[in-house]
């Protein structure tokens, strides 16, 4: 090699876009950490509950050592399992759906990674990892909605998908960078009502992008 690649590469960057503000990077990190701790504590509670139930089963109800006759209440499954495994498994994969978007045919538009089938079942594209899912965050008369955080084609995004009484599915998306989860959830009813948010990014309502909904 008779040219200095390192020096040439170092010198190749001249006009770069600005970075996100550091406070936004911190905010995104804090949100992720809270979510992680919540998932871990939920898993610990679930494990403790499983142990308690197991001990109870081994000891039996009539061994004379139980002081509280009330049944053990298991925690809800929504928060008691590692989020990625539990929530991803909760959405079935439709093999036909994954082939809808062939390589390099989707460059001109965005597409929802999940949708509802005609019978209201939520399906996702294969390899989409759903980190967080909230069913019916927005009431839809005669239909239903779902809000998800998902990694899709290399990016983590927040999505709102809803199906109206006629079966019509609509999807909207925003970028978590610079948006607090509370802002996103607070804004969901307005999105269903047609609001598009602040296209310039942080500050006020999240920027909302309409996305294609492929047929499952």
């Amino acid at each position: 090699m008779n040219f200095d690649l390192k020096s040439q590469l170092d010198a190749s960057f001249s006009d770069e876009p600005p970075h996100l503000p550091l406070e936004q990077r911190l905010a995104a990190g804090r949100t992720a950490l809270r979510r992680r701790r919540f998932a871990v504590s939920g898993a610990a509670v679930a494990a403790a509950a499983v142990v308690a139930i197991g001990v109870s089963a081994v000891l039996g109800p009539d061994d004379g050592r139980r002081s509280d006759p009330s049944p053990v209440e298991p925690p809800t499954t929504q928060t008691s399992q590692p989020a990625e495994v539990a929530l991803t498994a909760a959405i079935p994969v439709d093999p036909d759906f994954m082939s809808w978007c062939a390589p390099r045919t989707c460059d001109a538009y965005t597409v929802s990674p999940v949708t509802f089938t005609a019978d209201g079942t939520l399906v996702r594209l294969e390899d989409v990892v759903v980190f967080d899912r909230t069913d019916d965050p927005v009431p839809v008369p005669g239909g239903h909605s779902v809000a998800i955080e998902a990694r899709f084609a290399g990016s983590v995004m927040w999505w709102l998908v809803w199906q109206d009484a006629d079966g019509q599915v609509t999807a909207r998306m925003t970028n978590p960078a610079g948006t607090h989860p509370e802002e996103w959830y607070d804004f969901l009813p307005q999105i269903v009502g047609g609001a598009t948010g602040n296209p310039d990014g942080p500050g006020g309502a999240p920027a909302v992008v309409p996305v294609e909904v492929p047929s499952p």
Partner: protein
Amino acid sequence: MRREQREAAYTDFVAARQTHLRRVAYAICGDWTQADDLLQTALVKLYVAWPRVQRDGREEAYVRQILVRANIDEHRRPWHRESAGLPRTEQAAPAPTSPEDRSVLLDALQDLPVMQRKTVVLRHWLGLSVEETATELGISTGTVKSHTSRALASLQGTLTTEGS
């Protein structure tokens, strides 16, 4: 580690290294918007793992590995698309360097097959050894050498042609 200490150390690291790390992401993917997304994803993961990663002194290696592997994951998807899931492509995206202003070398780099591009970035820009590059990319050292050899030949050919 107290939260204030964690955030101060994290912020110092990000402020000092984000430009370099985003350039690495850009060299790998060739798109500033995607590079921003890759970096943000990596920095969020870094924040979560900060106490352990900082204790081991692996902050930069940790981020770099996420950048490289995230991009690998994307390219392994059966229906990968170049602008997938990037809402900012439909908005007023931060002005990237225009095509005519882009460096001939960066353009040539983007023309390489993805694994050749990554071996060049890791070996000849970031200075990793053959073994480290193989580990980072999950391929054999022999494959690293062959990718590197072909990539450098292509780059040199392209730059020679452009310069003549």
